[in-house]
């Protein structure tokens, strides 16, 4: 898998949220994205799952140019990308398990199976007991973990984690980093945006990218080597388009 992004002008109104960001990420990498508040981390992640369209440059995922994707293909792209949103984006008046299962439901997976897998994912973030509680009744950290469970339950090809530990205590943060690490080692490309120095210090990333005011100002090798050197996979456009590429099966 190969990801290429570069922008002439940033998205998001008059502000240049991103400027000439150029980044190649290989399959199975775990890239840490840091930078001060307002650096453009979230915007960069949002362009990858086509929630934001760049004014210039191109983003290539699995050989496909995201910025020129047909609108109708976007859902199928997103099914291969798990996203942990900074503001969670949970359905507040539904149960935790419904929120997690939705990523499977939209692919037409049977309710029984989707609920079993969702429960498993909730267990992985330590919330198996809270499965039936409404999201609005849960604490900040619990909500964040539901967002994490939702992002990983589909075993996506790409995982975008935007500040996934902002509401978690050190112990839980550690567990979550372990979870992301193991997901990445199984072949999922992980991009993790954070400003928590503890996360930066503890995550076994393959690369550390520092953004400032929309530009990459530093890029270091991480402690971990990528499981595979960055290479171009043969594009699987029909997989992305038709939604038949089910990473869960593809990867196991």
């Amino acid at each position, binding site marked *: 898998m190969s990801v290429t992004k570069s922008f002439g002008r940033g998205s998001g109104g008059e502000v240049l949220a991103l400027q000439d960001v150029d980044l190649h990420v290989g399959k199975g990498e775990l890239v840490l994205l840091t930078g001060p508040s307002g650096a453009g981390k979230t915007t960069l992640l949002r362009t990858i799952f086509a929630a934001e369209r760049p004014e210039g440059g191109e983003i290539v995922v699995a050989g496909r140019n995201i910025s020129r994707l047909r609108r109708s293909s976007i*859902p*199928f792209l997103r099914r291969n*990308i798990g*996203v942990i949103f900074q503001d969670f984006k949970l359905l507040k008046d539904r149960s935790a398990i419904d929120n997690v299962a939705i990523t499977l*439901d*939209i*692919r037409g997976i049977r309710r029984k199976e989707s609920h079993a897998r969702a429960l498993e994912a909730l267990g992985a973030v330590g919330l198996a007991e809270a499965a039936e509680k409404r999201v609005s009744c849960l604490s900040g950290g619990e909500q964040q973990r539901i967002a994490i469970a939702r992002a990983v339950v589909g075993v996506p090809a790409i995982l975008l984690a935007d500040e996934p530990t902002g509401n978690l205590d050190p112990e839980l943060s550690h567990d979550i980093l372990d979870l992301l690490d193991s997901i990445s080692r199984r072949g999922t490309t992980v991009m993790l945006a954070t400003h928590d120095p503890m996360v930066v210090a503890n995550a076994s990333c393959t690369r550390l990218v520092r953004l400032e005011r929309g530009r990459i100002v530093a890029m270091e090798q991480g402690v971990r080597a990528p499981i595979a050197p960055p290479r171009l996979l043969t594009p699987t456009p029909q997989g992305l388009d038709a939604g038949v590429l089910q990473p869960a099966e593809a990867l196991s």
Partner: protein
Amino acid sequence: MIRPGYFVRQALRGMRAKPMIQLAAVGAIAVGLLLVGVAVVCALNVERLANHWGRGTQLTVYLKQDATRARADALAKLLRSRHEVARVRYISPRDARKRLGESLGSRAALLADVEPDFLPASLEVELSREADGAQARAIVALLGAARGVEEVDYLGRWAQRLGTLVGLMRTGAILVAAIIALACLYIVGSTIRLGVYARREEIEIQQLVGATPAFVRAPFMLEGALQGLVGGALALLALYVFHSIAAPEIEGALASLLARLDVAFLSPLQLCLGLVGGVLLGLVGSTVATGRYVEAA
């Protein structure tokens, strides 16, 4: 690929979770269809009333003094051959005199000295239900020019007033029905749109995690169809109740004047159309309303 069961469950969940939105939409659809239904039933019965009284529409054809009975029969035959004529009756001078006497009541003695055939013979022509004003005027013109006809007496002043009034009522009912239909369309549309608007975040989130527009829309459409069905059924029920209450009153008021007129209700076909209309209203409304937010993301 995706089981319909999922959407049914989602739609039901949505309806349970936000009963207020459902009630607003169901209410708007019910009220809209009820008003249209009232207008339709009114128009329907005004039409029936017009026909009923229209049946009584009579022409009196006074024959010339020198017209023979054979001439009268020929004219009657000619009239009977026309489809807009329902019945033709010959009134001899003697019959006419008897009638005048009856209409004078206690003052009938007045006619004691009058010779039996002083009054002219006449033909009483009753037009069929289907005959409209234009056809009636055509017949009047025809008879006016016919040999042996002295004068044609067409519709009395009161009958004409009544006809005009019924016509006005019909026009009014149609006009009002049109306003109501448009107005209700607008209200149903905006109510459904507001309901979807209140749930725009849900739609946004679903799309962010990869739901197709069809997936997002399906529960809303199902919900809309259900709202329409329930709204339509409520409207028809309310209409039926109104009818049950109002019909005997109206019939009673008319009974003293006319032989008998049932105030009609909608036919089974029209009832079905009402339900189908409700479902379509809900379905189209939801589809259009959801479209906004599904497209936007």
